[in-house]
């Protein structure tokens, strides 16, 4: 079934706002106007956007450290993202998350800093959904570099053993931090390893957001129906550096240029033009609106009150966070079946 024009346009907006946010962020870092180091995902936004957009707010997503596209995809607004990035108490995690971002209102249950720590957390979340028969799906986002962590194997084993509603959504962007993945990973494709655990797998184009979205929809339907885990490998290429202080000198310019021709924003924009869902002017307007939204959110975040010393000390234990309505976890989970 072909993707409908409204969905494609929504995906396009999310791609563009992710790109604009990262570019504005990178500019602020260059001008030393912002402290927060960025792990950017330039050129691979289609994966996070497609994954997040395919999920319901009550589904659980464990994002990657290159996760802006995943947050945007899942429905987190720029206001909430930047309040948290500026570590303001008004942020969804009270500014205690920063880069280790979470937003339980849209099912973003937490970003771990030690890569691979979330394999088992995702298994636990999926096990919880299964025990509660809640119909919630858990998606674990990770990269091909993190497939080298030992818990990769343990998590696939447990997910298959217990037939959990868990989707392993792997981005293969060919870069494990500063090293090409051929120097870290012994096979060109990681997904076929799922075969050994009896988990159905697929390899998809990670630069076409429509493909990512449709692939995810199928996997989500399967997982929600109780058919057990799925392993998806999305092929892409990180055309930018690992983090904001990295010059990317180890990257081959030809590869970068070749992949930039298949830039997900270009691919999706062309798709919209081809089906007559948007004009070139419409696409320009999307970019202008996205830029204004990000700039507005950054200005609003800057104006928020800063964390105090007492606020910094508070909240190690739940009893300290005192006020009503917190600690409730992810709301609006579908009714139990």
């Amino acid at each position, binding site marked *: 079934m072909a993707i409908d024009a409204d969905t494609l346009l929504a995906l396009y907006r999310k791609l563009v706002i992710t790109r604009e946010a990262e570019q504005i962020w990178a500019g602020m870092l260059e001008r030393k106007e912002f402290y927060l180091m960025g792990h950017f995902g330039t050129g691979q936004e289609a994966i996070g956007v497609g994954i997040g957009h395919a999920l319901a707010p009550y589904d*659980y997503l464990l994002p990657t450290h290159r996760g802006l596209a995943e947050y945007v995809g899942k429905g987190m607004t720029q206001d909430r993202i930047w309040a948290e990035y500026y570590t303001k108490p008004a*942020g*969804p*995690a*009270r*500014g*205690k*998350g920063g880069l*280790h971002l*979470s*937003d*339980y209102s849209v099912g973003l*249950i*937490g970003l*771990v*800093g*030690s890569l691979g*720590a*979330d*394999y*088992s*957390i*995702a*298994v*636990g*979340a*999926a*096990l*919880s*959904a299964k*025990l*509660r028969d809640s119909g*919630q799906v858990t998606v674990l986002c990770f990269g091909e570099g993190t497939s080298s962590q030992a*818990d990769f194997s*343990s*998590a696939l*084993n*447990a997910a298959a*053993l217990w037939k959990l509603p868990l989707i392993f959504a792997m981005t293969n962007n060919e870069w494990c931090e500063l090293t090409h993945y051929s120097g870290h990973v012994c096979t060109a494709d990681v997904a076929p390893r799922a075969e050994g655990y009896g988990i159905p797998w697929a390899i998809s184009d990670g630069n076409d957001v429509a493909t990512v979205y449709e692939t995810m929809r199928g996997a989500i339907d399967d997982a929600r129906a109780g058919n057990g885990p799925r392993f998806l490998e999305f092929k892409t290429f990180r055309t930018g550096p690992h983090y904001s202080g990295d010059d990317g000198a180890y990257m081959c310019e030809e590869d970068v240029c070749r992949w930039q021709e298949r830039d997900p924003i270009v691919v999706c924009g062309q798709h919209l033009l081809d089906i007559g869902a948007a004009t070139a002017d419409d696409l320009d307007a999307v970019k202008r609106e996205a830029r204004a939204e990000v700039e507005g959110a950054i200005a609003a975040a800057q104006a928020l009150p800063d964390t105090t010393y007492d606020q910094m000390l508070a*909240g*190690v*234990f*739940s*009893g300290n*966070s005192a006020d009503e309505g*917190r*600690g*409730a*976890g*992810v709301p609006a989970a579908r009714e139990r079946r």
Partner: protein
Amino acid sequence: MAVVPYLAAINRALAEEMARDERVVLVGEDVRAGMFGTTSGLVDRYGENRVINSPIWENGIAGMALGLAITGMRPVAEIMFADFMYLAMDEIANQIASWTYMTGGQTTVPLVIRTGGGAGFAIGYNHSQVTEASFLNPPGLKIAVPSNPADAYGLLKTAIRDDDPVLVFEHKFLYFMPQEVPDEEFLVPFGQANVLRSGTDVTVLALGSMVGRALEAAGTLEAAGISAEVIDPRTLEPFDRDTLFASVAKTGRLVTVEEGRKRGGVGSDIAAMVAEEAFTSLRAPIVRVAAPDIPVPPGPLAEGMYVPSVERIVEVAKGLVA
């Protein structure tokens, strides 16, 4: 009042809390059969969805507990040996400890990790350590160290009802030790030390398996004319400073006793606290009675020399009062 072994008291606490709250689930290796008997029989009463055998994956048991806890369940995870807590260190120290703070309290983390530590079976190395001291440093973890069956029962029930992560360091040798436990239900609150014996000359703060030895030592000391006060803190986080400081103010002398090693041990932390904040109460140096800084040696002979003895506690206390 029934006389029951520590492991039966744990089993009773688990059974009662599982009956009370259907969100309470057990996860761990062999929890259906029960390696030491603490979880035996519970699968028959509560079913396989409540008593979940995990693959051999300690880091995963801890991480799964976290995933369960932040999505509406109240898991009680079991790490079979306290030594294996190190296999789960990333999840416990980096993730579980930080999660409430890192998410700004958007979720609570109501999980318990139970583990059995300690010497007594002469196995040595990775099956004989007590490891609670290693978990004092990461903030955000509550730590209980029950020294007898009644506390094992009452502290575990409190742990299960707590909305924060709690590590319960049980002791394998104590598992088989019977003692009186009241028949009616009760909880042991956290942060409330147990003064097991009142005294005026020296405060002996003992932990877990060492509480029994400290009491025995206090009996010997009394015969020698020395009045020892024996305190079991029961929880290390929260820690009952008031009871300890009041005792030290009275006796002016402090001996800490633990089965673990001295360097970076529980006694080191408590000694520093007292030296820093109650120095003027002290009439003698603080002494830490602990295991030597070596791996736990195998064999009954070496293990017997490794674990602090009653005689050592007596000797140290006499030296302070003389």
